[in-house]
Every structure is written in structure tokens, then in C-alpha cells.
């Protein structure tokens, strides 16, 4: 419908306003690296005088460097206190973006990301991001304004029962009811978000509580006494599991997101390599094991590699670490690793035998428990045949795709080109859909905390705001690449205004097929090709839209533009957007249909 000039020539970005705040070292002091009790008697800080100041003091004591949020009536006292703080606040364009940015900050840094919003719509807009953090066990603290206590329950302006709304999607939440206590409420929320199995916490802050006078300094960030975490796994079960591994003929390691959150990537790598055990990861576990290693079978599950799904289906011992056996991983329960005795390491006892029965339940911290296991295993399993079989599967079910020159650009090629153009430490964020799966499949992940995505919730629109959060948590020499879809990008692209204002060096590659592609793929497979509400038919020109925001815009229509355009976009020092017009009919394979047998994955549509 619209005329589009194919252009790969970048145009100059708008000049930045001189008076805009820039991120400087002085605005972002180094975080207190240790996780011990924070100093509550910082001689340089003036004593707190209000609840709001206590809230900010609690964050400062916890070593918080950045906060993401949007102003509004009921949260104003907190922002007023933040005005004098060294904490750098990133004003987002929408609260959903604030929550996703905080979430991504938490994923990349390992420390809780902070998001702020006002009462009512501010708080409800955060909910998608909070739910995302809850599903993916990402550390995050949400602080929401609330109407003054005396109005609570009266349906006051911008009143929502925020603790009520967020109870099902938070690890814990608190309605602050005392100015003397509110700082400690925030400290506790911070500690709870980080300790044990991480997750989002929320403190709802009525305006009278934050405005209220207090001289009470917040306690150090520690969890309440009722919260208990078991760090070490039961040694007897460890010994039994070790024996099982030693005698296994077909062992496989399954590394989940808990490996990365528990800083257990190193010990898992050593364990796998020492005993030559093939490694499969879940989607959140991408980066836990280097995918360029011979033992890596890459990602399993619905769109996992054929060889990962074969390995997981045929193993006789599955050593699963930090995974909750999500249905997208397991497919049908009846056919999931049906020959395997399962050794399950998880810090959350409730994950043990929730979906898959654990024959050897190891409740504990991933790093500690896998170290215990490594120490207990005396001899490597004799699994030469099995390893050869796994290598055979790697060649039988190779991920090689067809990309003829005369066809439209294939998305797999673009993902590989992006990977090629960036370092091993580059961080990848995504939205949700086909592009996300291509990123999982065709990016070679080698380092933990470089993969940032919405796994459990599957929230379209996650990519750009999470790139903003990831950028601020990343080292300067780490590139941040958002592999997005056109539908996902359209949901939260207002975040470009933030990226431009804050001069954030991120590259967004929109794999544009003018479809809600994954839905279109399912409609073709399961709904007789009836494209109900999945065919956009028209999309804005994202390169020009980017330029209207002040970002650098690029466009790719043909293969010969891919490498150069990506190089220019990645090299650009600031936010850039590449509108990549890919083959609209490209599909994601392999595929295990919902509830299907992992071993019976389809390689083409007619196998579904």
C-alpha cells in the first residue's frame, strides 16, 4: 500500500538537546558488590525525614544504580526523594516498558531491577512486566504509588487494588502502612526478589505513608525469618544420584534458566566436559553451555533442535538443573524422556515432581548442588556409543536451511549475520514469536546472561524495552541486539524515544513479515490456512519511523544488503533500527505440536 524506497544509507540522527541528562559515571556510582548487610549509617547521607526518603534510602543501601519508571500523582513523593539521589532514573514512555527494562536489567546484572509507577493505570500497566518476571524468576522490585490510606477502598481517582491485582504474579507483595516501616518494607522486598529462587516483589506506597514524617532508617536488605532457602542438597540423595550417573549408558544434562541465575554455568560446564555428557538447554538456559562445543545439543522443546529432542527422548538418565519442566519443553508428559531416571536440581522444593517426577530430588542452590554432585561422581559413565549416536543425530537433523539467492531474505540468515557481526558477549533480546525462535535456533550462545527474552509469559513487545534495561546493565563493550518481530515491535516501539534521549547504543533488527507470523504458521498448519487477524497486510516503514524518533533507520530487502547494513547499524553509536523485509512465508522448524511427542518433531509442515 505504501511506497517504500529501498534505502540502506543511514541518515543523520537528530541532534541531542544539550540540556538533556547524559549517563555519566558520576550519575551511576558503582554498586556495592557484596551482597552482605548494607550500610545503614552512611555518614555522607542526610538522615531521612519522610517515608519517601526512607524508600529511596533503602534502594541506595541495597546498591541500586538505576531505576526505570513513569511519574504520576501518587508516586510523586517518591520521585521527589529520588531527585536528590545518586540513583539514575530512566523515564520510560510506558510503564510496561519500565517493568520489562527492570526485568532485563535483573537478568543481565543478577541484581534486582527497579521499576516505579503511579497508582491505578501506572500499576496496572506494570502488570505484564511483573508477570513476565514471575514466570521467568527474574529479580525485580516494583514500587507503586497508591492513593492516601484514608481513600483506599473508596474507588478514589486512580485507585486500584494493586496488591490484590499483583498477588498471583509476584513472589511477594506488601501494602505499606507505616512511614516508620516503609523503608524496611522496601529493603525486605529487595532481598526477597534476589534471594533463593528470584522473582518480582512489589511494595504499594500510599501517598500519606511516603509523605509521612519519619526518622527511621531502613533495615539492611534481609529476608524475613519465615523465608527459608535450602542451599545444600541432601548428601544421601547426591550419592545415589552420582551412582546412577556413573552407571548410566545414555546420560544427558538439561540446563535451565536456574543455572544462569544460580551462577552455576561454570560448574555445569566443567561437570559435562569432565564426564563427556551431552548437554541440552531449555530456552531460558541458553548461554549456560557454549553452543559451539561438541557436547552441546542446543535447545530442546517445541522449537528446539531435532538432535536435542532426540537426546532428551532417548536418554536413560536426565540430570536436570534449574528447570521447571514447562510444557513448551516437555511436550506431552507421557512421552517426555520416558526411559530416563530424573535427577532434578532445583532451589524451589515446589518444582520437584510438579510436572515430571524426580527420582533423585536435589533441593538446593544450583552451583552448590552441582558441585556436590561433581564431587560425588567418581567415574565417568561409559557412554561412547551414546555420544556417537548424539553426534549422528546432530548431522541427521542439521539445522541447515535453504536460502536461494532468488528468494526473499530468509530470517535464519539474518540472525546468523547479526551473530557474525557481533562479539561472543553480545546480548540478544527479543519479542515473542517466530523471530524469537529463529534467534534461539540460529544465534550461537556461548555466555550466560547474554540471552534476554520473555520465556514463560511470552509477552510480545518485550524486545525493545528489555534492550534498554540490558544496555544499562551491560558492559560498554557488549553489543545489545534486539531481534524483534514487526508485531512485537509495534507494541512497545514508543521506547525508541527513551533509547534516543538516553543515547543508548542498541540495534533493533525487525524481522518484518507483516504477519503475526507464529499465528500465521499455526493457522496454516491447524486452521486450514485461514489467516484470521494474523495478516497485517500493511506495516509502517520502521526505518523512517525510527528516524522520526531520532534513531538511525536502515532497511534490508535483499541478501546483498544484509552484511553491510548490519555492520553499519551495529557500528552506529546510538539506537538504530533495521527494517528487515524477510520471506513472509518462512516458518519455524523443527516443531513439536502442543502436547506432542518430542521425539516425533516435524521437520516440515506435512509432518505435523
Amino acid at each position, binding site marked *: 500500500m505504501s511506497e517504500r524506497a529501498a534505502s540502506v544509507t543511514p541518515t543523520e540522527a537528530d541532534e541531542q538537546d544539550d540540556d538533556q541528562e547524559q549517563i555519566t559515571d558520576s550519575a551511576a556510582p558503582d554498586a556495592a558488590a557484596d551482597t552482605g548487610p548494607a550500610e545503614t549509617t552512611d555518614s555522607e547521607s542526610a538522615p531521612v525525614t519522610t517515608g519517601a526518603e526512607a524508600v529511596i534510602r533503602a534502594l541506595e543501601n541495597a546498591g541500586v544504580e538505576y531505576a526505570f519508571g513513569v511519574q504520576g500523582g501518587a508516586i510523586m513523593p517518591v520521585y521527589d526523594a529520588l531527585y536528590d539521589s545518586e540513583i539514575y532514573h530512566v523515564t520510560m514512555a510506558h510503564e510496561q516498558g519500565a517493568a520489562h527494562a527492570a526485568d532485563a536489567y535483573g537478568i543481565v546484572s543478577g541484581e534486582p531491577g527497579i521499576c516505579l509507577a503511579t497508582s491505578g493505570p501506572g500499576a496496572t500497566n506494570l502488570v505484564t512486566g511483573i508477570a513476565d518476571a514471575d514466570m521467568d524468576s527474574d529479580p525485580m522490585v516494583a514500587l507503586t504509588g497508591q492513593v492516601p490510606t484514608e481513600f483506599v477502598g473508596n474507588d478514589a481517582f486512580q485507585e486500584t487494588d494493586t496488591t490484590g491485582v499483583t498477588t498471583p504474579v509476584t513472589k*511477594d507483595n506488601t501494602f505499606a502502612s507505616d512511614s516508620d516501616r516503609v523503608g524496611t518494607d522496601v529493603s525486605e522486598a529487595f532481598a526477597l526478589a534476589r534471594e533463593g529462587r528470584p522473582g518480582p516483589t512489589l511494595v504499594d506506597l500510599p501517598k500519606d505513608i511516603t509523605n509521612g514524617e519519619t526518622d527511621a532508617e531502613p533495615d539492611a536488605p534481609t529476608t524475613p525469618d519465615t523465608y527459608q532457602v535450602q542451599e545444600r542438597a541432601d548428601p544421601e540423595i547426591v550419592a545415589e544420584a552420582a551412582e546412577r550417573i556413573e552407571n548410566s549408558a545414555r546420560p544427558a544434562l538439561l540446563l535451565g534458566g536456574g543455572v544462569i541465575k544460580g551462577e552455576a554455568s561454570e560448574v555445569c560446564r566443567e561437570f559435562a566436559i569432565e564426564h563427556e555428557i551431552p548437554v541440552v538447554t531449555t530456552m531460558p538456559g541458553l548461554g549456560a553451555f557454549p553452543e559451539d562445543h561438541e557436547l552441546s545439543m542446543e535447545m530442546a522443546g517445541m522449537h528446539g533442535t531435532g538432535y536435542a529432542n*532426540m537426546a532428551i527422548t532417548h536418554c536413560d538418565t536426565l540430570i536436570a538443573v534449574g528447570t521447571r519442566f514447562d510444557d513448551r519443553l516437555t511436550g506431552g508428559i507421557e512421552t517426555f524422556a520416558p526411559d530416563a531416571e530424573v535427577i532434578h536440581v532445583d532451589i524451589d*522444593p*515446589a518444582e*520437584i515432581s510438579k510436572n515430571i517426577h524426580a527420582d533423585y530430588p536435589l533441593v538446593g542452590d544450583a552451583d552448590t548442588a552441582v558441585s556436590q554432585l561433581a564431587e560425588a561422581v567418581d567415574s565417568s559413565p561409559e557412554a561412547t556409543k551414546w555420544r556417537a549416536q548424539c553426534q549422528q543425530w546432530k548431522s541427521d537433523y542439521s539445522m541447515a536451511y535453504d536460502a536461494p539467492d532468488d528468494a526473499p531474505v530468509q530470517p535464519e540468515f539474518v540472525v546468523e549475520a547479526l551473530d557474525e557481526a557481533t562479539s561472543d558477549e553480545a546480548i540478544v533480546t527479543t519479542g515473542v514469536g517466530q523471530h524469537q525462535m529463529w534467534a534461539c535456533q540460529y544465534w550461537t550462545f556461548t555466555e550466560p546472561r547474554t540471552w534476554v527474552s520473555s520465556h514463560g509469559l511470552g509477552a510480545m513487545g518485550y524486545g525493545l524495552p528489555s534492550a534498554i534495561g540490558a544496555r544499562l546493565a551491560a558492559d560498554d563493550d557488549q553489543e545489545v541486539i534486539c531481534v524483534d518481530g514487526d508485531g512485537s515491535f509495534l507494541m512497545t516501539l514508543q521506547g525508541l524515544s527513551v533509547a534516543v534521549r538516553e543515547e543508548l547504543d542498541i540495534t533493533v533488527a525487525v524481522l518484518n513479515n507483516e504477519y503475526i507470523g507464529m499465528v500465521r504458521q499455526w493457522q496454516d498448519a491447524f486452521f486450514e490456512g485461514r489467516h484470521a487477524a494474523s495478516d497485517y497486510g500493511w506495516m509502517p516503514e520502521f526505518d523512517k519511523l525510527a528516524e522520526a524518533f531520532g534513531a538511525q533507520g536502515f532497511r534490508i530487502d535483499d541478501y546483498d544488503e544484509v552484511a553491510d547494513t548490519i555492520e553499519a547499524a551495529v557500528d552506529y553509536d546510538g539506537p538504530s533500527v533495521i527494517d528487515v523485509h524477510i520471506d513472509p*512465508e518462512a516458518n519455524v522448524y523443527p516443531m513439536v505440536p502442543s502436547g506432542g511427542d518430542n521425539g*516425533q518433531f516435524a521437520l516440515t509442515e506435512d509432518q505435523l
Partner: protein
Amino acid sequence: MKRGLDGPAPEERPTPAGRRNKQGIRIDPEVEATHQPRRTVISALVEHEPGVLSDVSGLFSRRQFNIESLTVGPTDDAELARITLVVEETDPGIDQVKKQLRKLVPVISVRELAPDAMRRELALIKVDAERPDQVAAVADMYGATTVDSSPETATFEVTGARQKIDAAIDTFSQFGIREISRTGMTALARGTDETTGPSPADASVSAADEANQYTETADDD
């Protein structure tokens, strides 16, 4: 161009011999393959603060746990309350109920009570009082006390195990029941066994062991 990937088709691939059941347990002669739902009593000691009850009830609805009754009341410690739940679930389901409850931050301890635990429920039963002598005789039979009477109605309080209350209601129904209100079950462990402590069988095991441990089914009283 070709769509999709190369490789042996599904029917050409080897398939494993094993299966799992719906609970994710490998079907194996040594591992119990099926689980029948059973009714049990779970007692939780919680911090007495706003929102705990909605946390607990919300947990049950969103995780689709079958809950038969839920009662809550203060304890001898003003800061603590006890929640007594009657649930009907399979063993893995009961296991999940306990672990998910324990995960809530204001929950201090969770325990499934032994089959011999004391279980009591209270009911208020309002009946037509047209035959006062016969009504009084039935009340006497169930140890019910009269709470209120009027020319047309009599209201009795019955306490006891669930079956006793069911039986009392059944017998009172011959007079015409106007209204009933039941409290749901409350319960305590017997003797020196503490309701809040770890289950006797679990006393020396870790959370990991507990994770896969099931106790036996029990009837009320």
C-alpha cells in the same frame, strides 16, 4: 524453494519403550503409576496480617487445587493465625499444596495432619419448632445445645466430626430445616505431637525427601 529441514521423518525414527503417566511418573513396575484422590487436613501457621487469607485462597483457585473447606482463626500468639484446610487431591497434588503453601512468605509452617488428628466442625441448624419435644430429643441425641428459640423456630449448635454433623443435619431435616451455617473443619494433632511442627515421619528428613513423600489416607475420626 524447499520449506523446512532435512532429516529422517518421524516414522523413520527409533522410539523409546517407556512412558510416563499424567503425573510425570515413569510407568515402571517399581514406581506406583496411578494415584487416587484422597481427603486430608492441612494445617498452616501464618503471620496474622492483612492479605494472608486472600494469598492462600488465591493460591488454591489459580492452581486448581480442590479445597473442601478453609477456616482461619487466631492462636495464643497474637501475631500468628492458624489456617486449617481440607483438600481432596492425589498424593502428588497434596504434595504440591503443601509446597506451594510453604512458599508464601507469610506462611511459617505447613503440615499435613496424621490420620488420628482431632478434627471438629461446628454447625448452626435452624429448624421448624412445630414438634418441640421431638426436636429436643434429636438435639439431645447429638449433644446439640439450644442457641435460640422462638414460637416457630429452634436453633441448635452441633459440634463434632464431619460425619456426625452430616448425620445430625440428616436427622433434623425431618422437622424442616430453615437455614444452616457450618464453619468448616478445624483440627489439632493429638497429645504431644505438635500441629505446627514437622510431621512425625518427616522430622529428620530434608526438604528434598519431603518433596516426594506421601502420607497415608485417613477418614475423619
